[in-house]
């Protein structure tokens, strides 16, 4: 049923294809491109887009298209990893706070408030400076800074559901906390979690590219869309294509994820006010 509703959201469906295309080409990058993303060629610096280099070359003579494909691997994988981490923390915190309430709730929600009150990017920059620009540290830092919304969503569901009759019934029948939480309460928050998670991937990709753009994200030579744009900053007046294509890749990924998120929201949560907000092709 939900799937049918999603299919009616034509832009979301198209976005799934776009994202799938990005993911598949990124995954198959070594098969698709004859070039090595890190192989430099000082004789081919700043070649304009041509048949042999459809997106031109960068300041080291590396094929930009190839680097965008390989960069997509990092950026997309990072988005998914960050969200997985954020969801794990967020669901755990939200579940504990919502289910046990009282002191646990008070303490955890204070922490959530505090995390919210930190200027996110400031903290991100400090962490990035502190832990350096390895993929794993960027993932952990972004994950640690993006679980709070999920925690609040899950907690809210728990608060509204935990005293419902079927939950009380399960408890009366001697079900353990763990079982109640996982079998009876958590499924109620799946829909908002999926939506939040999807949009979170977009947020993580954007955050990583912002960090990389500032020179604090994943370090070269590993290409990411963000650090390619950082290089482009100094090259854009000579070779504008170095700024146009990686930025467009980020834009394309984020816009399709946002559309998918919108479609999912329509499909999973029909009462949401932005229902059918975009339904043209």
């Amino acid at each position, binding site marked *: 049923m939900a799937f049918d509703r999603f299919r009616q959201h034509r832009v979301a469906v198209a976005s799934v294809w776009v994202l799938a295309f990005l993911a598949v080409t990124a995954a198959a990058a070594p098969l698709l491109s004859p070039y090595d993303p890190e192989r430099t060629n000082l004789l081919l610096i700043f070649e304009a887009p041509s048949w042999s280099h459809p997106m031109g070359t960068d300041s080291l003579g590396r094929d930009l298209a190839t680097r965008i494909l390989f960069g997509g691997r990092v950026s997309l994988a990072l988005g998914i990893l960050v969200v997985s981490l954020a969801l794990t923390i967020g669901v755990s915190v939200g579940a504990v706070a919502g289910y046990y309430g009282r002191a646990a709730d008070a303490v955890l929600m204070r922490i959530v408030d505090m995390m919210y009150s930190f200027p996110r990017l400031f903290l991100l920059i400090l962490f990035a400076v*502190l832990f350096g620009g390895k993929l794993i540290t960027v993932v952990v830092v972004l994950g640690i800074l993006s679980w709070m919304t999920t925690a609040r969503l899950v907690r809210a569901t728990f608060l509204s559901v935990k005293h419902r009759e079927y939950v009380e019934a399960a408890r009366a029948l001697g079900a353990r906390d763990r079982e109640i939480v996982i079998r009876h309460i958590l499924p109620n928050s799946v829909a908002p979690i999926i939506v939040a998670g999807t949009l979170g991937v977009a947020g993580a990709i954007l955050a990583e590219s912002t960090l990389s753009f500032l020179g604090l994200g994943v370090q070269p030579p590993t290409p990411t869309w963000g650090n390619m744009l950082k290089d482009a900053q100094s090259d854009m007046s000579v070779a504008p294509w170095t700024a146009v294509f990686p930025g467009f890749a980020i834009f394309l990924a984020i816009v399709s994820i946002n559309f998918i998120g919108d479609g999912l929201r329509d499909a999973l949560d029909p009462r949401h*006010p932005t229902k059918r907000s975009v339904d043209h092709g």
Partner: protein
Amino acid sequence: MHRVTSYVLRRLVGAVPLLLGISVISFAILKAVPGGPLAAYEANPNITPEDIVRLERAFGLDQPFHVQYLTWFGRLLGGDWGHSYASSQPVLAMIGERLPNTLTLMGTVYVVTLLIAIPIGVATATRQYSRFDHLVTGGTFLAYSMPPFWLGLLLIILFGLQLRWLPLGGMTVPGATSFDLVDRLRHLVLPVTTLALFGTAHYVRYLRASMLETIGQDYLRTARAKGLGERIVILRHALRNASIPLVTVAALDLPELFVGALVTEQIFGWPGMGRLFWDAATRADYPVLMGILVVSATLVVLANLAADVLYAYLDPRIRFA
């Protein structure tokens, strides 16, 4: 109103441990960052290791963490925000130099955003499912997904480097001796566009959704039935109610915008708080960094509080509990 005052007071008191926690954690992170403010001196062939030790002592960097924190905090309570390690300027004065510039930028962004978002939001909501509505909602998604720094770069390439219509950065033309509104506006165009696009998309979506919700409600039908013109119904009744969530969102967005200014200021050379933070971060200038974190965390707390109070004020169904 009495109840509101006590609510605000309670919330403010509640914010104190929050801000304390933030300051301790920030301080700890800063101290954990390797290098420190004297790192730049190490490469200087004229500075001896003895000089480094002496300077460490002069800045109190040889003290244990808790002593450094308590010293900083104690002075803060006394109204002394400390001095920059790099420039020796008082931190409060440094923030004071930059804050107005950031506020100018943010204020303009707010005005522009609302001026564009409100009419568009109203128009789309009244013409739901029209071609215009589809166009706008699609457009908001695109705008929403545009990485701001990329947009900034593209704007510079197009309007600064190619067309040469607008200045590439800065706040005034160099050498300007007096305030010139036209000049200031010319410098504002690109950074404001970069920041406002996202906000506009955000608000249009919110306004459209809440307008749609309001338009369908009974009292509007009543208003229409009373023979009021559609225009009045929409503007006087629907928009007023629909703007309640918008006010909240706008208040909650304040810190986001504040931070968003960091990247934008960096791209456009705007002499605001963002650049101050960036310079201080690269120099490990702890007193300045702590000052900015305290200011911005306070801003977040106040914005949250303002959002709640405003919301309750505009929507009489909510009581201060």
